[in-house]
């Protein structure tokens, strides 16, 4: 009973500030325009319907601008997550099994991006990788031509990998910490080489943290704003940037809200994967 009482305030806040606006947005995207909400009702090209219609979504998916934005968002999300895992796993392994000064330095370094605000980090990336940046200057001294990745798709991926590494490594290495040394030594005694130890023991025992990293990063990248706004091209854009533009500069709140609904559906799939992986982990 007391437990229920304790959990009530957060549930109340959740309903008031998250669930209710989300439902209102969903209704808006289906054509129910709330007259008392000026931010919604003053939009251009509104679809009004008393019974609800999918007209807004039809218009959205018929627009080639939106489909290229969605394709970019999916591409960036998958590539970023894949690269993030490829970069973070070795780092996590090094943090878990590395010995000596170098491992200590690595443990500090991979945490560094966590303490740098994203806006500052993107500025740093622009100064380093951008046109007339440091990298171009360094490569220029040895005569290697360089084409900036900033304001390109690759720039967004670069930003996301940089920003995402600390969380990924922390998550993965804490999972690896949970695997006892005895277990690994026993495997080595049986003659297992490093690859077999990784493939047959570390990876399977550490699969839940890996899935958590992948799903959380996917959701984070999919809905991101700052990194693609700062590092991405003018067009196509990731959905987060496009939503903000539609809501503000284009005065198309209904389209923006419909895009949010579409993003939610995609992220819900990733969320389901996360829920499935954690409950599965608990059972075993």
């Amino acid at each position, binding site marked *: 009973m007391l437990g229920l009482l304790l959990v009530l305030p957060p549930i109340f806040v959740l309903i008031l500030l998250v669930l209710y606006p989300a439902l209102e947005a969903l209704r808006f995207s289906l054509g129910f325009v709330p007259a008392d909400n000026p931010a919604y009702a003053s939009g*251009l*090209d509104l679809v009004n319907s008393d019974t609800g219609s999918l007209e807004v979504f039809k218009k959205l998916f018929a*627009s*080639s*601008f939106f489909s*290229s934005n969605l394709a970019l968002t999916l591409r960036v999300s998958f590539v970023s997550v894949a690269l993030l895992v490829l970069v973070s796993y070795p780092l996590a392994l090094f943090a878990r099994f590395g010995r000596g000064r170098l491992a200590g330095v690595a443990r500090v370094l991979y945490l560094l991006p966590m303490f740098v605000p994203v806006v500052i980090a993107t500025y740093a990336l622009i100064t380093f990788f951008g*046109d*007339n940046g440091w990298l171009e200057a360094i490569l220029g001294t040895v005569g290697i031509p360089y*084409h900036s990745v900033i*304001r390109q798709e690759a720039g967004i991926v670069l930003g996301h990998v940089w920003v995402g590494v600390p969380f990924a490594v922390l998550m993965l290495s804490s999972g690896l910490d949970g695997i006892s040394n005895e277990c690994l030594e026993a495997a080595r005694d049986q003659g297992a080489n490093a690859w077999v130890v990784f493939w047959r023991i570390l990876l399977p025992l550490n699969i839940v943290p890996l899935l958590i990293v992948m799903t959380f990063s996917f959701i984070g990248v999919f809905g991101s704003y700052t990194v693609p706004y700062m590092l991405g*091209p*003018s*067009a*196509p*854009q990731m959905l987060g940037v496009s939503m903000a*533009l*539609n809501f*503000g*500069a*284009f*005065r*198309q709140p209904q389209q923006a809200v419909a895009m949010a609904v579409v993003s939610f559906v995609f992220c819900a799939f990733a969320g389901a994967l996360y829920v499935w992986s954690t409950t599965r982990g608990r059972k075993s």
Partner: protein
Amino acid sequence: MKRFATVLVLGALGLSATILAQGPVKLSFYSSGDVNVKNLWEQNLLPMYQKKNPNVQFDLIFSQSGTGNQATLDRMAAAKKAGAASGIDLLEGPVLEAGEAGLLVAVKSKDISRLSRVEANVLARAKGFGVPYRGSSVVLAYNASKVSKPPKTLEALLEWIQKNPGQFTYNTPDTGGSGNAFVTRVLKLGLETKDATTFESGYEPALINQWDKGFETLKKLAPNLYNGGQYSKNNAETIQLLAKGAINMGPVWSDQGLSALKQGILPENIKLVQINPPFSGGSSYLGVAADSPNKLEALKFLNWVLGEEAQAVIVDKMNGYPGVKIAAMPADVRKKFGTIAKSFSFGFSSKFGADMNRLWYEKIAGTPQPQR
């Protein structure tokens, strides 16, 4: 005896009235803009005015970039609805919206004698609900050591861009007025004269196809822009690109350009010109709240802001155009704005502007970028 008492009472009333008039007046001033606007008021204009009028005090409430403007309007509207005082005397920012909602007094030359010095069309833009006290417009900045003959007309500018690939760019129209003014100017190519005012102050979605010609022109321009079709991120990036020498021409705000030249951010070989027909610009307006108990003092202040002394400071500190006609300014000011201070044109209405942003992204930026 009775008469004596009347005289006494009247005398006392008159005395207290004089005391009241001379007593301190606190003007609550809601302003908005960039940091330079805040500094202009706090460090220059308000202290200057107070020195001359020690009985007037100001309570400056500043909204950075106008983010609090809606809250201010809501507050004034709520006060009006409830019949209470809003506590706001002076308003800088959303003067037209506030005026149309009946929250501001209309400014008239019988209250503000210097109103005659203001351009009539600029005053009409805010429907007479505010005094335009400073202005700026978008102009063309170019590198004089690379470009000997800058284009003087829009046609010449478009031709120059095509003939000099990679040397021009503008910012995406939603991120700053300079790129917005360039896009607006090009879109105006296809407008029919009879619909021009609708585009500036009304909304009629059926007219949007008049933009087709302009969008076609912008699309042809894209591959010849900086880096084969890259747009700058905002007003400031265009200035940075000019400063780095990455581009040799671009649209910039007159005040930002002049300030950058003064601070050395832009090298001296960057010059500013206005083309014909001119890029769009805008003015900042000051209005007086309809429910203000200090209307007279507030109007007196507005009259002072239009005077030579205040206008000279605005020109100097903000590098803004004076709010009054250039002809009413001293010779050195006329010289400073010689090549750019022609009257500016106006942009599209906010709804047309929103559509312009959207269509620009769909038709211009949204088309596949040329690969190098």
